[in-house]
């Protein structure tokens, strides 16, 4: 008979510090073209300093690039958009915009790395619509401290922050997305506050937690909102920023 000996890792702490979003509010709005522009109006190159600061080396991590483009329609019309990553089309779409309403395009690029170029092209069915705001922030999702197939006992997500926090223009939060805890082949549900797990078993791909906006939902696509006065009107993620865990394995 073989006697299996359970063993614990040392207690690990994962601290994540988000960089503030980069925002630009144009003094003079730029008129949207009525056909797709050759050069997208919104463009960000991912720099290492844009990534969330992490205190330890991770076995796995993914980054979401959240990019905003916003403006106003003077007469009612259709807004067309395209998301591009390194010049390759990621998603396209359109939204009917009400007369005198402001629109916000929130594009979520999944699995971005340093030097990736993230862009949004905007154009319109009418001649008097414009663009005047852009922003960008990188989020961390699917982190894994240990190799997959080890039981996390415990897994505790102790500090949860909301990101992004936009400040320019007339910002308003349209919604907030909780994070999920992958466990075996299913999710332990969606959480907006602290999480205390006695034992969870992430199988690797989804990491210890998965963010909502840009990963669990709206991955590699954009969400378009509109409002008479609020702009940017956007969705935030509940982001764990302080995690404590041990790994349990059998040898």
């Amino acid at each position: 008979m073989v006697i299996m000996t359970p063993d614990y890792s040392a207690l690990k702490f994962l601290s994540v510090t988000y960089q503030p979003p980069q925002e630009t509010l144009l003094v003079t709005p730029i008129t949207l073209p009525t056909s797709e522009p050759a050069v997208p109006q919104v463009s960000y190159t991912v720099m290492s300093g844009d990534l969330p600061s992490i205190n330890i080396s991770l076995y796995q991590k993914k980054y979401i690039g959240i990019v905003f483009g916003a403006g106003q329609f003077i007469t009612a019309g259709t807004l067309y958009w395209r998301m591009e990553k390194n010049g390759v089309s990621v998603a396209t779409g359109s939204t009917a915009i009400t007369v005198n309403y402001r629109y916000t395009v929130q594009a979520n690029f999944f699995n971005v790395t340093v030097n990736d170029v993230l862009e949004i092209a905007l154009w319109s069915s009418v001649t008097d619509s414009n663009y005047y705001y852009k922003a960008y922030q990188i989020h961390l999702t699917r982190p894994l401290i240990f190799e997959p197939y080890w039981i996390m006992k415990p897994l505790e997500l102790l500090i949860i922050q909301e990101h992004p926090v936009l400040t320019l223009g007339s910002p308003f939060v349209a919604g907030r997305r909780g994070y999920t805890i992958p466990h075996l082949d299913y999710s332990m549900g969606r959480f907006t506050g602290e999480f205390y797990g006695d034992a969870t078993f992430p199988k690797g791909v989804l990491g210890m937690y998965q963010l909502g906006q840009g990963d669990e939902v709206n991955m590699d696509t954009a969400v378009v909102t509109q409002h008479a006065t609020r702009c940017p009107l956007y969705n935030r993620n509940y982001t764990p920023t302080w995690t404590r865990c041990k790994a349990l394995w059998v040898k």
Partner: protein
Amino acid sequence: MNITIDLAKKQDLTDTQIRALDSKLRTRITNLIGWAYSPLTGFLTLDFSDTEDNNMMNRLNDWMNKAEGKRLIRFEFLEMIKKW
């Protein structure tokens, strides 16, 4: 309310094709607000904004009014549950 459909076709769209798809979708689906298509996944997401959600909430409010001040405890829709 959003609905995502797998078109099982991964094709990048030009400006002209985007406009043609937009026109076709809006002709067939009159209350459509917006849509998004990914050539990476072939998924088409139809956006009905909050209109449909608000219709459901209005019906809920109507039922609450008809409850004559009695407290609503729980509303179940498919597997989604709203609790008060």
